[in-house]
């Protein structure tokens, strides 16, 4: 099988999560999951004629029925994706990347997920994996922030499922006051400090660069070490298999050696991301 030649899949369902994020349910034409993956891995989705791009797989591998991608409208291909309707065929290839070490380093740990905006997408896969394998992990805390209530991705799942899972604590925040919101208001980095999490936790973080920067600084102030904090990176990709040469940070390729890095690993790499 040629790595660059994709397989055909069908988008069976499109769900609007926020004004600019939609979640796409993907199956093979005969109704199966296209492939098996690890939480945090990605895949190349394409609309032939428009282009191909890398997206994190947002559904958990424990979901045996289908695969999901939560995609924010921000460029050419994503605008097209936002226009498709159920039944539309697309192409996919993958899975790519290392994924989160759910069966090794993260096992048995108390986990703290920190996400901002669409940054929840790659973490959702891990969160649901850990919920489905609840006995393998310690406590699960989720701090998730967005610009407004409407911009919280997977809000329904968070309220209906995550908040009702024993041992899972969800802390939501939005940037500015809103009439329909009686929860926390404020930026993620500050909220993390306010919540003052136990520094024994292992952190999985994803969000806009500015959020990462300030949250990381805050976590370190609280006493967290770089070795406890994981993130997942995004750079421009074309091949997904470490050959086309554009997603490297120093000698590491995000598509192949990443996208998941620990901050002590990132520290070893040049600051070019």
């Amino acid at each position: 099988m040629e790595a660059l030649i994709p397989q055909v899949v069908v988008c069976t369902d499109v769900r609007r999560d926020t004004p600019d994020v939609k979640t796409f349910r993907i199956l093979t034409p005969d109704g199966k999951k296209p492939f098996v993956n690890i939480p945090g891995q990605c895949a190349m989705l394409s609309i032939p004629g428009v282009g191909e791009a890398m997206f994190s797989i947002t559904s958990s591998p424990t979901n045996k029925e289908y695969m999901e991608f939560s995609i924010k409208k921000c460029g050419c291909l994503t605008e097209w994706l936002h226009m498709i309707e159920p039944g539309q065929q697309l192409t996919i290839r993958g899975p790519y990347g290392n994924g989160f070490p759910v069966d090794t380093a993260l096992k048995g740990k108390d986990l703290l997920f920190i996400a901002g905006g669409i940054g929840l997408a790659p973490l959702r896969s891990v969160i649901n994996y850990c919920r489905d394998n609840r006995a393998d992990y310690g406590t699960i805390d989720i701090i998730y922030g967005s610009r407004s209530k409407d911009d919280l991705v997977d809000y329904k799942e968070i309220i209906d499922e995550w908040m009702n899972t024993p041992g899972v604590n969800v802390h939501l925040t939005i940037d500015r006051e809103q009439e329909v919101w009686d929860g926390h208001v404020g930026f993620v980095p500050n909220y993390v400090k306010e919540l003052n999490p136990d520094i024994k936790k292992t952190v999985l973080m994803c969000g806009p660069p500015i959020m990462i920067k300030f949250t990381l600084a805050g976590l370190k102030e609280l006493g967290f070490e770089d070795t406890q904090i994981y993130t997942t990176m995004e750079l421009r990709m074309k091949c997904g298999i470490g050959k086309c040469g554009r997603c490297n940070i120093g000698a590491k390729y995000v598509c192949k050696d990443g996208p998941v890095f620990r901050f002590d690993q990132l520290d070893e790499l040049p600051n070019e991301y």
Partner: protein
Amino acid sequence: MYSIKKEALGSLLAAIGAKRKLYVPADNAGLILFTPYADGVSVNLSRNPDVSAKDFFFPQVENICRFKVCGKTVDVIDNREKNEDFVVFGVRACDVKSFEVLDNVFLSEPVDGYYKDRRDHSLIVTLACSKPLETCFCGTFGIDCAAPGGDVEAYACGDSYAFRAITEKGEAFLAELSLENGGDEAVEACKAKINEIKAKLPLSDLTTEGFGGGKTKDLFNNPKWAELSASCLGCGTCTFVCPTCQCYDIRDFDTGNGIQRYRCWDSCMYRDFTKMSAGQPRPSQLERFRQRFMHKLVYYPENNNGLFSCVGCGRCLRKCPQSLNIVKVMKALREDD
């Protein structure tokens, strides 16, 4: 070892060309380019061709697959070209080494089938460099231009050419041609002469000291990058003439009768190479310029057991519109020590 008189080269090439596709270095508008062999082609073996031999395995553009899009359905058709056996004549030691550099990328898992198929169908007849140029520095990377390798090695010695098989494939190839034995002494003399010239080359004292895997922190933030990259035009000349540059882009083209997905050469020197909707990790030419040289001198060796992804062919020295090149970069970065 086999030998033929120089004037018999034409009939030898014709004999090879009669059986297989054959590419030879030939004159073209003042350049020397690998050209399909045919009657009347002006073979020129005087220096290394202007464009590297990487095109034979990693062409400038090639089809990946075609899509038939009809309503909501998509069909994927593997329409890659079928390769026949072919011979490339007159490849120099530097370009042969570049195949190893490319192999590490394309033949590592997952194997690139397009590249592999071409490699499998090829037979490489190399040629020792009798007259290396002022731009040549293959010796810096441990390459011996007097022992070029490939499937068959050729030497231009006085009034004759000598051939030696290196691989089994090369042995079978030479056996087919029923050449006369001989040439061993002439080759030794030829090698001795080349070694004499090599020692005198202006770039013969360039070493890789200070470069290699693990040197990122030493070199990445060197203030010299700003001046080194200042006059870079951001064109792709260096990357496209380079035998080891292998970055590529994947694009779709609407043929009017389906979508053709193709792969083409890309260049880290281009401003849109890493540009995303979300941002640009290499916003100026400094970062792009630095990436190219860091990749060749640090990142690639780090991932490939110390092998550098420069082979000292000197094409970037010959071709950069503004006379920037890897030698200058290596010397400038070294000055700090």
